């Protein structure tokens, strides 16, 4: 009973965190699902957002500026992966690995050391409402409003001429040029938006926890993919709206499951193998039945 009680006590905190992780999962969903581009940049873009934001906050810049700078830095990282892939025709997975490996050194340089506690620094939540940091219910409401606003913006964008063109790249790359759609422009824009969202997630989590660590991206991609897959089993993928909701729903459930597993005594370090096994099973089972949810996207 203690175990269950411990878990139940953590439900609101976990929900609040998972809403922030939704940005990361959105940043993973966009390349994988909308662009059919398996993109690993998030392993580096997530800590990049955190490090840029933390460093600027410690230097006394305004939290809004620090957060916007983090988004831009993330967008640059995504664009870099796109360019490595397009210009040098390097496999998309390898392009992502190259960029996040390079980002590890860059993040270390930006932060100055491997981790920084944001003592005494202002942050964006204190500016919105100082009570947010201590009141979990207020956090959930604030983050929910934030993520809904981002979802509405994305939904709008994907129904514009530019957004629809971007979706064609993922659906039928052979058709795109003959419709006058530039693969380069759409890939760079798409990965830029995606990694910008991932970096926003990193910047927000750093400001929520008051702590930045260059290692905060390790394994984050698999967590994100697990969340995405869970979300998609619930929302489906038939429409753009359902595809956009999947990351948020998935993150909420995934992080509750993680919290439950930890309450039951699972070591945090063992969690990664459990998550990897889970992703393998969810992606692998349909493959054994002859079709894979991810197969089309992994082909690129």
């Amino acid at each position, binding site marked *: 009973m203690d175990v269950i009680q411990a878990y139940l006590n953590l439900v609101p905190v976990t929900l609040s965190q998972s809403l922030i992780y939704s940005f990361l999962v959105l940043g993973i969903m966009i390349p994988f699902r909308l662009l059919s581009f398996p993109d690993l940049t998030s392993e580096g873009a997530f800590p990049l957002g955190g490090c840029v934001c933390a460093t600027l906050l410690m230097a006394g810049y305004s939290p809004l500026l620090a957060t916007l700078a983090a988004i831009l830095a993330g967008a640059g990282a995504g664009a870099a992966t796109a360019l490595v892939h397009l210009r040098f025709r390097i496999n998309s997975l390898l392009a992502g690995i190259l960029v996040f490996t390079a980002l590890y050194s860059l993040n270390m340089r930006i932060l100055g050391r491997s981790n920084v506690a944001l003592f005494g620094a202002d942050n964006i939540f204190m500016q919105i409402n100082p009570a947010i940091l201590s009141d979990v219910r207020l956090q959930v409401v604030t983050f929910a409003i934030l993520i809904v606003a981002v979802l509405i913006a994305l939904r709008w*964008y994907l*129904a*514009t*001429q*530019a*957004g*629809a*063109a971007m*979706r*064609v790249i993922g*659906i*039928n790359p*052979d*058709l*795109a*040029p*003959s*419709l*006058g*759609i*530039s*693969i380069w422009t759409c890939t760079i824009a798409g990965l830029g938006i995606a990694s910008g969202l991932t970096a926003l997630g990193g910047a927000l989590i750093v400001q929520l926890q008051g702590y930045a660590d260059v290692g905060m991206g390790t394994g984050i991609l698999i967590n994100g993919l697990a969340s995405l897959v869970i979300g998609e089993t619930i929302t489906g993928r038939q429409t753009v709206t359902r595809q956009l909701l999947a990351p948020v729903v998935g993150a909420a459930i995934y992080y509750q499951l993680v919290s439950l597993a930890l309450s039951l005594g699972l070591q945090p370090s063992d969690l990664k193998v459990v998550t990897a096994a889970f992703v393998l099973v969810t992606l692998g089972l349909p493959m054994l039945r002859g079709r894979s949810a991810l197969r089309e996207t992994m082909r690129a």
Partner: protein
Amino acid sequence: MAPEVTSVGMPLLVCAGLRKTFNAGLAGARPALDGADLALNRGDFVVIIGSNGAGKSTLLNTIAGAIEPDGGSITLDGREITRLPAHKRAGLISRVFQDPMVGTAAAMTIEENLALAEQRGQRRGFTPHLDGAKRDRYRALLAGLSLGMEGRLSTPVAQLSGGQRQALSLIMASLSRPSLLLLDEHTAALDPRTADLVMEMTLRIVAEQSLTTLMVTHNMRQAIETGNRLVMMDAGRVRDDIGGIEKAALTPADLVEKFRIDNDRMLLGT
């Protein structure tokens, strides 16, 4: 006759000395294009035939910009486009692919596909790509073609038959009034009855819009019955170019005799 037929004396499309070798340097690499010359006048409907490996598809892909030639030049409407990326010439040139799966975006709806095609060659900005006025226009357009698609505007294209997808692909190719329409064996993957329907529709659209058209086919009956010029390709070059009265009088037997066609993919009627 459309006004542009008489307006300018210059050909619309000029391909001069196009050369392309795939896997150059590898042993046994043969040129796919070996100095191909071709000129199309405004309003021309040119049909290209030739055996496998003659360079028909490579020529079409080079004109569309999907393949960059090793040498030679392509001029469209007086403008050199040899090195222009495919997406930048899409406003002038549109194409229908052989594979019905390639010509449409399967996961998108019929109306979304049409909207994307209508935007061909224009700047894509941040205005909604669909609205009520467009939907009404597309519904009317499809109703006129009696394909049973007018009531299914919001159906994903993936749910259409191959014939319907190819018909949609043809409408998409002609929607933005291209200067040049490329048809790459666009009925070859369809059953004979559907192929005839799509071909009929092609002729109607080409005539209505007086489109300058370049069609590759393996179907000899199509080659004889369609277009005002017949071009035969062999070993990466244009070997013969038959137009006017001679083309009109051509029979399948003439064609076999003339080109000594021994290709089993050549179909004598269907």
